[in-house]
């Protein structure tokens, strides 16, 4: 038996539930050296901004137990180059291109959505809300439900109606379910979670923060239990809302955990740095896990952990 791996997240249909996490797959080209990127559910790009962006000074990354801290600062070429060079390349390889966007205010996000809607082939727009709001002295949109709602509304208004819009949430908020609800009310077709968790390390030799500037974003298996709780709680509160789960996925079993918690698809981020073929390996391991459990359709497992104990998973 070959399990049916197709999943459906609202209007977003994918051949399988494994994708790359934003900012962890370069432009797609780097990974295409190691596997056929058309084989995974989608390639989520790093967050694209209107203008080219140099990012943050080095050191940008530090290793921590089962994780890493990063403060890359969204280095990228800007939407112009993305549309001319990166997007056509992804499409030419048969990849499903989900585009993450980031900006300094709702206007910039809206402009990005408009530009992406004019281009053919964008499968989904993911709104990175962990970007500083210039009007509020750099406070992240994700940390303020009203600001987040304004951004999501602006993107939904400008994005072509057939392109699903997912809001990417940060776990560092007092009321994640509340924020999720606000984003959905503002027009988000789905949610992606979680972004990195605030953390820090200090180099005891240089006696300086290990990542320039101090704290950074923690990612990798170290944050998986946090991410899983976020997905579980949001799915419990909003069972109809499609969720892309991420945070420390490294194996097929990890991906399965997220699906059971309520994610309709799973993104692999930091694990790619360790293993450039992580996405296809996770996919293979997930398929194997389904076979071992006699599950015919991966979609039947989504949210299964919420069902009453003993309730059968119907394939």
């Amino acid at each position, binding site marked *: 038996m070959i399990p049916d791996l197709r999943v459906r997240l609202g209007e977003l249909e994918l051949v399988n539930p494994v994708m790359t996490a934003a900012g962890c797959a370069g432009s797609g080209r780097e990974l295409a050296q190691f596997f056929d990127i058309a084989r995974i559910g989608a390639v989520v790009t790093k967050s694209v901004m209107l203008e080219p962006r140099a990012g943050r000074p*080095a050191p940008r990354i530090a290793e921590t137990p089962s994780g890493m801290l990063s403060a890359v*600062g969204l280095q990228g070429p800007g939407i112009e180059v993305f549309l001319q060079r990166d997007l056509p390349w992804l499409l030419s390889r048969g990849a499903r291109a989900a585009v993450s966007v980031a900006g300094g205010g709702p206007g910039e996000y809206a402009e990005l959505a408009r530009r992406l809607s004019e281009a053919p082939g964008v499968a989904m727009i993911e709104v990175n809300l962990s970007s500083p709001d210039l009007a509020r002295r750099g406070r992240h949109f994700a940390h303020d439900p009203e600001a987040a709602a304004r951004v999501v509304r602006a993107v939904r208004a400008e994005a072509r109606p057939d392109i699903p819009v997912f809001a990417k949430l940060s776990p560092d908020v007092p009321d994640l379910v509340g924020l999720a609800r606000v984003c959905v009310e503002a027009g988000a077709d789905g949610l992606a979670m979680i972004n990195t968790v605030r953390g820090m390390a200090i180099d005891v030799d240089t006696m300086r923060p290990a990542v320039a500037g101090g704290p950074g974003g923690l990612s990798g298996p170290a944050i998986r239990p946090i991410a899983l709780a976020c997905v579980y709680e949001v799915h419990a509160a909003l069972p109809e809302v499609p969720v892309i789960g991420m945070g420390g996925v490294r194996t097929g079993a990890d991906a399965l955990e997220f699906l059971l918690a309520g994610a309709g698809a799973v993104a692999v981020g930091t694990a790619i740095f360790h*293993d*450039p073929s992580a996405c296809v390996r996770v996919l293979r391991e997930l398929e194997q896990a389904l076979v071992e459990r006699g599950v015919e359709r991966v979609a039947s497992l989504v949210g299964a952990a919420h069902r009453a104990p003993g309730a059968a998973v119907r394939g």
Partner: protein
Amino acid sequence: MNDFRPVQMSSPVLTVRQVDAYHAITVVAPGIAERFRSGQFIAVAVGGEQSSMLLRRAFAIHDVKPDYGGTVEFLFAVRGRGTAWLAERRSRDLLDIIGPLGKPFPLPRDPVNCVLVGGGYGSAPLFPLAHALRRRGCRVDLVLGAASAGQVFGAITARRVAETATFTTDDGSFGVRGRVTDALGQVIEDARSDVVYACGPMPMLREVTALAARHDIPVQVSVEETMACGTGVCMSCVVPVVGGDGITRMARSCVDGPVFRGERVRFDDVGTIPFDALGAPGWKARGDEESPVREAG
């Protein structure tokens, strides 16, 4: 073109040995050995399959041999948990390796005089380069430096592959007391060097580049910036580099380098985002935008 693609492989360890103050591991890695060009590196996963250390360690390839279908040797000093784990590997253990990665040293078309300058284990990639240059009929001179005698790497091999080999140590325990740049000028004059190749710490590369400029000869530098993935996806190993168009970009040393033309690297700005770099805060700010203080990954 596909021949240049890096490969990921599970490579058996052939030997682990001590070379001067360093450890050297040779692995059987035919796919990497056959694609290798000097200056390229490998990225090694450390700690085993379920390792809590997620970042790959990058090492310059020091030697490639045809034995067992192709072997690759790299060199390291134990500096943390990852390299300590590597030093404990034994023959027949498997290492998860990706390579060859990065841009190789460009080789001159004509048989010119080349001086190769290395600091510490930055000397490692210079040996395959020396062989490649010799095969093209180039004259090769080596200048190798380190803090003290124990860290000067490959002295015996150096004398064998090079026309002249000059050694410097900070404490004078071996060769000339001082830094490589104290000896380099004389070597360039004596050997009538046409081009400089250098690998080592940033301050050394900066000095070597300045010296080459004074002698009006080109210099290729291989930077030893810390990397996390080696494949170009994590964006952590960036250095400010001036492009052919005169614009400074934050270049990834793993895929845009590690070899750069020396005069293109903005050594004084390493560890910063130069204000005029493409996409730096305030760079070509559009009329309707305030100059932002931005962050977030």
